[in-house]
Every structure is written in structure tokens, then in C-alpha cells.
């Protein structure tokens, strides 16, 4: 109430001095804010999963001293695995949540506003279709991955802190835990992994879904998944080959040939050759070109699209 009372004379004053002049418009920033207001699952889902992970971890904390005692008897490789296991699991679960949220977000992003007819309101404002589509693409390409990494790191730190507290309370040392867990390295790996595999390599997939959501009148999920599946089936039936399916699989799991060691995902940024190979692989750039094409199509489609 106080705020309102204080703000009122100011507002009157400013409108008297300079009517209809507000701060410079920031359409992209506010379009992003709009996405976060509308799609609260972007941050609620990873937080909820982090909460479940922590709850599960707390429930097993009483076994920790025994586990650590057993671990000290193991060889260093196995010990490292055992200590890191719960932290990797937490990261994995939050990552899967990120993927699910990103898929559902993209499939609804340009469809929801047509379904509830609010596109007629959004289009009445001086915000271009390009700004809208780019702000929506920013969610899976930047906001969600960054938030996922942040939630994961915080979750892991909480796990480590509580784990250490339990160990100290039991009179055990925590040196082993902290020497096996290199947080900086783990977080950097996560950041690298999420932006190489789940953003850069999978970018065409998100862009495709954004385009479908701006094109399809209904059933965006079916329109997004049936055509690729149909291509795979047709290819198999007509030519008895699976190039398209393998290509999709390759892309979704991290583009094997782009990396130094076949069969491993781009997990480790510590070797420079991996980064260089990744960034110079033609398949990455072809994928990004396809991404740009899909996004451009989504921008054009939004101009033609009205409420459904």
C-alpha cells in the first residue's frame, strides 16, 4: 500500500512532464519474461526433480558411513565410481527432465498462443515475429540448459555438504569424498556436455518442433514425430537401409564421428583436440544451418498464422 501511495505522485509527475514517453522498448527481453511467466514448468520441473533427488539422497544418508567404509577397501577406480554414483544419478535425472520440458515447451510454444487466440493480442503490439520466435528458441537453447546446470550443481553441493556432515558426525574423514569429487571439473563437464550434445547437436530437433508448433493446427506431437518415423520406415521398406534412422540416432546421442574416440559422447572438454574436432565437424554446421532454416520457416509461418 505504501509503495502505491509513494509511487502515485511520481507517476503523475512523470506523465505530466513527458507524456507517453517510457523507457526504450526491449521487446526481446520482455518476450523472454513472457515465456517464463507463461511456462513455469521451465523452472518448476527441474526444481521439483532436484527436490525428489535430494529427498531420496537424504533417505539413504544413514547408509553413507557404511558405504564409505566399504569404499575405502576398494581399488581407486571402483571407489571413484561408487562415490560419484549418486552425484551422476542426480545430474542424469535433472538432465532427463530438461529434455522432457524442452520437447513439450517447443511443441506448444507457437501453438498455444494460437489455440487460446491470444496471438491476436500479441500481434497487436510492436513486436516482430522474428523477436517472438527467437525469444522462444532461446528457452531450449540457453535458458533451460543454463538453469539445468545451475540446479544440478546446487543439488550436488547440497548432497556433498550433507554427506560430509553425516560422515563427520560419525567420526569419519571427508577427505576421500572431496578428493574423489572434483566439483569444478564435474560442473564444467556438465556444462560442456549439455551445450554440445543437447543444445548444438540437437538444435535442429528443437527448431523442427518449434516450426511444427507454428504450422500444425492440432496434434503437434504427432506432426513432430510421425514424419521422421515414417521416413525411417519407408527407407527400410523401399531400400532396406537405415541411413536416416542412424543419422537421427547419431545426432540425438552426440555425433560419434565428430569425436576423437568413437563411441563416446563429447563428455570431456579437457582435451583440446576434442573441442576442435567437435567445432570443425561438418555435421555440426550442417545441423546448425538446418536449425536456422527451420527457425526462419517458423518466423514466416507465424506471420501467416492466426487463431485456430
Amino acid at each position, binding site marked *: 500500500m505504501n509503495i502505491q501511495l509513494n509511487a502515485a505522485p511520481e*507517476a503523475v509527475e512523470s506523465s505530466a512532464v513527458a507524456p507517453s514517453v517510457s523507457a526504450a522498448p526491449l521487446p526481446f527481453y*520482455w518476450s523472454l519474461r513472457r515465456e517464463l511467466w*507463461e511456462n513455469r514448468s521451465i523452472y518448476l520441473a527441474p526444481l521439483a526433480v532436484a527436490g525428489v533427488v535430494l529427498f531420496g539422497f537424504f533417505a539413504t544418508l544413514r547408509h553413507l558411513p557404511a558405504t564409505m567404509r566399504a569404499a575405502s577397501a576398494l581399488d581407486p577406480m571402483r571407489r571413484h565410481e561408487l562415490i560419484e554414483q549418486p552425484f551422476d544419478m542426480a545430474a542424469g535425472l535433472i538432465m532427463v527432465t530438461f529434455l522432457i520440458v524442452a520437447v513439450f515447451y517447443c511443441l506448444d510454444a507457437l501453438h498455444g498462443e494460437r489455440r487460446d487466440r491470444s496471438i491476436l493480442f500479441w500481434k497487436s503490439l510492436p513486436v516482430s515475429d522474428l523477436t517472438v520466435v527467437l525469444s522462444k528458441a532461446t528457452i531450449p537453447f540457453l535458458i533451460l540448459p543454463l538453469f539445468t546446470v545451475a540446479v544440478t550443481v546446487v543439488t550436488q553441493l547440497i548432497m556433498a555438504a550433507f554427506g560430509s556432515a553425516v560422515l563427520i558426525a560419525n567420526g569419519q574423514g571427508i577427505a576421500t569424498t572431496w578428493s574423489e569429487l572434483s566439483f569444478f571439473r564435474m560442473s564444467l563437464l556438465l556444462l560442456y556436455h549439455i551445450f554440445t550434445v543437447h543444445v548444438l547437436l540437437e538444435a535442429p530437433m528443437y527448431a523442427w518442433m518449434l516450426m511444427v508448433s507454428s504450422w500444425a493446427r492440432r496434434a503437434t506431437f504427432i506432426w513432430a514425430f510421425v514424419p521422421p518415423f515414417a521416413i525411417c520406415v519407408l527407407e527400410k521398406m523401399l531400400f532396406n537401409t537405415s541411413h536416416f534412422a542412424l543419422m537421427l540416432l547419431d545426432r540425438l546421442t552426440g555425433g560419434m564421428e565428430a569425436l576423437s574416440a568413437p563411441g563416446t559422447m563429447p563428455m570431456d572438454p579437457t582435451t583440446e583436440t576434442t573441442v576442435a574436432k567437435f567445432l570443425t565437424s561438418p555435421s555440426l554446421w550442417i545441423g546448425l544451418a538446418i536449425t536456422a532454416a527451420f527457425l526462419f520457416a517458423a518466423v514466416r509461418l507465424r506471420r501467416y498464422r492466426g487463431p485456430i
Partner: protein
Amino acid sequence: MACIEARGLRKAFGATVALDGIDLRVEEGRILGIVGPNGAGKTTALNAILGLTSYQGELRVLGRDPWNERDRLMCDVSFIADVAVLPRWARVSQLLDYISGVHPRFDRAKAESFLGRTSIHRASKVQELSKGMVAQLHLAIVMAIDARLLVLDEPTLGLDILFRKQFYDSLLNDYFDRSRTILVATHQVEEVEHVLTDLMFIDRGKIVFQSSMDEVESRYVEVMVRPEQIAAARALKPMYERQGIGGSVLLFDGADRKQLAAMGDVRAPSISDLFIAVIGNHAQAQGATR
């Protein structure tokens, strides 16, 4: 400069022609009412003006091409294309934040003051508001935008009579000045009748009538003809004849008022009577050519 200028505006959806070569010029400072039967092309015409639909032909709105410059055009144009298009998930305060953030001509203090007259809370979500309140909110937003052109397409559809009256009252009293232009398409003709400066009828994608309200008042006259004068009245070639409660009502275009006054009660026709006369004749003419 004309606010809206269209030449040969055409739009077809498959085999259906929604706009069949419309020529239109709307000067600044007018309030133009667009009236037409369902499917006449009103909404298509407005959508073309707002850059919501593609078209053939020439169209300039405030000197811009709406289809290719919608975002820039929207700095100077605001519209209510339909009732209840505000995003249902949004809070009132979020909408105000967003519009302040993207619109250079939005005066938030003004919007707040309009909202102060209603029972709408800033923390409410749009989905919690009644239909009438959503319309009030949208109107408050639109009136706080210092636009040169305001386009309203059935802005009061489905609202009760009290809200509808208020809606047009605030539009006239708090928003309209001679520098702005307003376009309004509606079925509820009697409500906008006293608001308009210009009138246009659209039927089957064509403009079938276009006139200023001053001209409508001076040109058209309706006479409740006494039964004994009916033959004489018909000889003056009325546009339209209908049966009223007390006898035949004949509508004349540009007839001598003194002569008509001798035949019965003379009065100005309402827009809806004029509409029925014009559209009825248009439909007959169309039938004859087929």
C-alpha cells in the same frame, strides 16, 4: 495524409472471395463504422489493414505496408480484434509490465488510472476475470496507447448492455480526439450509431455503401405513409418498403422532404433500416444478374 488507403484490395480463400477489389480511403480523425452481414468480408478487410492477413492489391496504412511492416505499424496502431484474446495465464500486472516494456507509446499511469475506475485487481489473472472485466482491461490497455489508428472488430460481442454502453462512452469521452482515427466493425449497429462520423456497408466482399453520417442524415429519409397516399409515395421511387405497425414505411434517397411530409410522418432512418434497404437491394441486384 489519408490514414488508410486501399486500391483493388482482394483476398480469396480457395474459391471463396472474401474481398473483391475494395477501394477505400479513410482520412485522419474519422470514426468509420463497417457494417455487413456475416461472411461479408469485414474481418478480412480489418485483418488486411492490421497486417494479420496477406492480400492482393494496394494497401497503405499510415504510409506503411501492413503485411510486411506489422511490427513497426503497431507502434501507431492498436486493435481489439475479438473479445477475450488477452492471454488467460497472465496477471494484470504482468500484462502492464510487458506492454510498458515493448510499446514506446504506452502510458502506464494512464492505464492504471482507467483500471482504478474498475474492480479489476492488479494481482488477478485474466482467467479469473469475468468476460466484461476482460473487455474493460483490454480497453484500458488500448486507451493508454497513444495510437493514431484504433481498429475494433466486434469489441463488445457477448457483453451485457451495461458494459457495451460504458465501452463506447469511455472510448468517445476519454480516447477520441480529432487526430485519431477509429475503425469499428460490429453487428450491434444501434450502439455505434451516434458515435460514428462515417458509415460503410460491405456485402460479399464489396463496398456497397459509403457515406459520412452528415450525408446520411441529409440524404435519407423514412416516411410512415398514410394508406391513402401509398400509390403517390411509391411513384417517388422509394429505395425500400417495409411494413411497420401503423402502415407501410418507405425509405427514400434524396427525395423532397416537404413533398414527403404531406404523405405521412417523416423521420431519419436508423442505420439498421438503411442497412436492410441497401443490402436487400444489393442482394436483389446480384440475383438479377445471375
